[in-house]
């Protein structure tokens, strides 16, 4: 083909492609505010994007990873964010402060929080921590420690607490050197320690293990208005979650490509993924469903550990209007697409 013809052809292609591209640009942006950038911790996002599920639903995800010192709820209120990832304590505090938010989806149904001890420690339960210094990853983990001590009849005043901060090395050194007898923190913290050679054992009381962790909250006033975009987003998310149930290798490869920074150490990455699947994969029949009884049972202990100021009626904010639509997809089709992706991208 001569130069001239090539130019003509490419111009023609561009001219016809542009309207097509513009049409494809007709995506609704869903602004989601959460604590982490794209990460193995919330792999459904990465998986759904790799398989093009958001685009299919006409949705584009604008992720707004922000430090938790920013009040997420305020941005739901003023519309700058459509969805915020909150935990139960934040949700109830927000309701107590009068924010009109609804919890529409449970992202993680197994609480990642726990009490971790060093492998070499002789402690067998939280009761053994009485009279020692316990480390907290952040100020907010004190409430969890208090609840844990509550289950064995002890009180928070029976231990000394010190805030260690989120920095990996500091947590690792604290456990390794015995500066603290245990750490009240969350799964991502343990995984990193374990993957880097600091063995961690968990002594979290049984009663505290079943607790909704992260959830999606949205503005109550615009639930109907944004229904299409929301259902599309949640359906794509749920599909991403489903892939991990049937094809974890595909998920691993998608993560390796999508978030290389977390997979520089292959072993750490795998461990991280395993634990993330454990947290993200819903145990309810409808994926992402809201467990009303768990929320109701949760509040008294939150109240007694002073994490919340007063209890809130769960029906006033738990809202499952999107759950059916989110679960409305062909399981077999998703399985096939995931397998095809893996074959192509191996």
């Amino acid at each position, binding site marked *: 083909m001569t130069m001239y013809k090539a130019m003509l052809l490419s111009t023609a292609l561009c001219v016809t492609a542009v309207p097509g591209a513009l049409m494809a640009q007709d995506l609704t942006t869903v602004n989601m505010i959460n604590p982490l950038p794209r990460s193995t911790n919330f792999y459904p996002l990465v998986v759904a994007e790799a398989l093009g599920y958001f685009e299919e639903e006409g949705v584009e995800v604008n992720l707004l990873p922000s430090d938790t010192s920013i009040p997420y*709820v305020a941005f739901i209120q*003023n519309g700058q964010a459509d969805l915020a990832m909150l935990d139960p304590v934040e949700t109830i505090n*927000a309701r107590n402060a009068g*924010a009109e938010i609804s919890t529409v989806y449970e992202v993680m149904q197994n609480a990642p929080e726990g009490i971790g001890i060093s492998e070499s420690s002789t402690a067998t339960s939280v009761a053994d921590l009485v009279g020692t210094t316990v480390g907290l990853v952040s100020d907010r983990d004190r409430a969890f420690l208090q609840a844990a001590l509550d289950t064995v009849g002890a009180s928070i005043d029976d231990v000394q607490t*010190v*805030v260690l*901060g989120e*920095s*990996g090395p*500091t947590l690792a050194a604290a456990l390794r050197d015995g500066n603290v007898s245990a750490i009240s923190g969350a799964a991502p913290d343990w995984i990193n320690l374990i993957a880097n050679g600091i063995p961690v054992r968990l002594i979290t009381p049984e009663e505290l293990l079943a607790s909704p962790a992260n959830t999606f909250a949205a503005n109550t006033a615009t639930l109907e208005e944004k229904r299409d975009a929301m259902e599309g987003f949640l359906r794509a998310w749920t599909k991403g979650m489903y892939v991990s149930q049937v094809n974890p290798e595909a998920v691993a490869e998608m993560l390796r490509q999508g978030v290389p920074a977390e997979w520089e150490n292959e072993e750490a990455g795998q461990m991280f993924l395993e634990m993330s699947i454990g947290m993200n994969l819903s145990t309810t029949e409808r994926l992402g469903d809201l467990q009303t009884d768990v929320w109701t049972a949760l509040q008294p202990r939150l109240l007694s550990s002073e994490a919340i100021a007063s209890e809130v009626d769960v029906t006033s904010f738990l809202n499952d209007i999107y759950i059916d639509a989110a679960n409305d997809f062909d399981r077999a089709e998703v399985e096939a697409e995931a397998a095809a992706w893996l074959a192509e991208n191996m």
Partner: protein
Amino acid sequence: MSDIASPKSVKMEIGLLRLLPHLLLFLTLLAIWELAVRFGIITSIIIPRPSAIIGAIVTLYVTEGTIYKHFFITLTEAVVGFLIGAGVAVTLAVWSSLSDGFRRYVTPYAVILNVTPGIALTPIIIAWFGYGMGSKIALAAVICFFPIFVNTLTGLTQRDEDREELFRSVGASNYQVFRKLRVPAALPLLFAGLKIGLTTALIGAVVAEFAQATDGVGVLMSRFSFQLNMAASLATLLSMTIIGLLLFYTMEILDDRIVFWRRDSRMSAVSRARARAFKAQTGR
């Protein structure tokens, strides 16, 4: 003589008069804010009513008095950190100004320390100085070192050739040139650096608290913020700001007294005092 008001009372009256416009401006702003929230113009959770903030201030300071411990901790961290950082900075700057070689070898490392982000240093600082006030003091000292160092060094190395020639022509020694010419010439910049450094040290202490701390104004603030008790959070923030203002104005007063030649009234006061001392000495 009695119908002329005494200088002191006139000063006080003038002082109050000068304060009045400030107060009026401030109260007007507050009133607008309160009304905006009451009438629903400002609906965000982030911006509470001034009346709620005042309520929180009362609770924090009077009813429950929770804030005093944290206030004191953060203030100590900032001031001690500043003193250490400033001490090291001024010393190094003085040596650098006196010795070319010293300056050449110290400055690159000072710059490197400055451009290395605080986030990077935090784990190491915590490892060295522990989980308590020590690490916050250390971070405050590290962060406020550089502005003071740079300003002091610049102040000491600026040369007024003419004046130096004058000094030498009357046979001044190196030490005298340094003490009577270069140091006073450097003082304005030095104090500018100290002012920057002091507020920087406070910020350093608070930032360190946000990253890892069990007690302190920063911790209190983020605790309230998490509970969405924005009124209390802002009240705590105000406390931080008061600390900052106090520190800054302390530095201003010191600046005024030490660099006295800048204000005419101070200059005449000091020269009168010196004249008196001289007269007393020579007995004339």
